[in-house]
């Protein structure tokens, strides 16, 4: 814990709101301030961000055969 007016527990519970939304809300400002002082919470924040990044990077191409079957099923094959 440090001098911010939010606890580590609160930061961890609300950290997700600060990932992409309501960035200027009083809660998020307090969270950002807390993160700048608390390395444990900062590590938690980074790990959640990385988790999201991993799943964002995990993408598949539509298999060529699946594409062909789809277009045929829809009557759109050339």
């Amino acid at each position, binding site marked *: 814990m440090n001098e911010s007016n939010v606890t*580590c*527990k609160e930061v*961890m*519970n609300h950290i*997700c*709101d600060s*990932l992409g*939304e309501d960035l200027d809300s009083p809660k998020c400002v307090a969270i950002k301030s807390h993160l700048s002082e608390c*390395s*444990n*919470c900062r*590590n*938690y924040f*980074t*790990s*959640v961000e*990385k*988790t*999201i*990044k*991993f*799943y*964002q*990077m*995990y*993408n*598949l*191409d*539509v*298999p060529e055969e*699946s*594409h062909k*079957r*789809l*277009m045929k*099923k*829809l*009557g*759109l094959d050339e």
Partner: protein
Amino acid sequence: MEEAQLISSAQDGDKKALAELVKKYEKTVYNFSFKICRNPEKAENTMQETFMSMVKSLGQFDGKSKLSTWLYRIVTNHCLMELRKKKRNFVSIDDDEADVPEGAFIPDWNSIPSNIFENTELKNILDEAINKLSPEYRIVFVLRDVNGVSTEETGKITGLSVPAVKSRLHRARSFLRNEIGKVLEK
């Protein structure tokens, strides 16, 4: 051609415009289906069902919502129906288990490169973690975090209120973070 023009032309029976629309959303629909259904065969089947539904109902599409929202909703309903048939038990994350215990030391993930999951074995870790998550949470996580759909749109697609979307997202993120952490923090 702009999307609105493509839709309008497709509604007038222009097959080329319809094919363009399908190609535009094919990868998105396939990936979303795969990430929710967790099976390539089911993902293909869901993709086909989704576009058949789109073709059938395109005449009624009034443009008030985004076409992507409409497609996501079809995929969501289809996958949930399929998954409920299986009645598989998923990990419950309605309690505090998704949270990190108070006072626990959290290692620094900064040194982990983001592209390590190009490695097949590590991809399995991502698969295993998300497979444990119940579909209702998985859908919110994939829509909001992976596909970048807004909280409000995610609510419309899933029929959830904005606070409910936020709550599920928080639980899903924490759960996945902890599951992956069990391997990466060893």
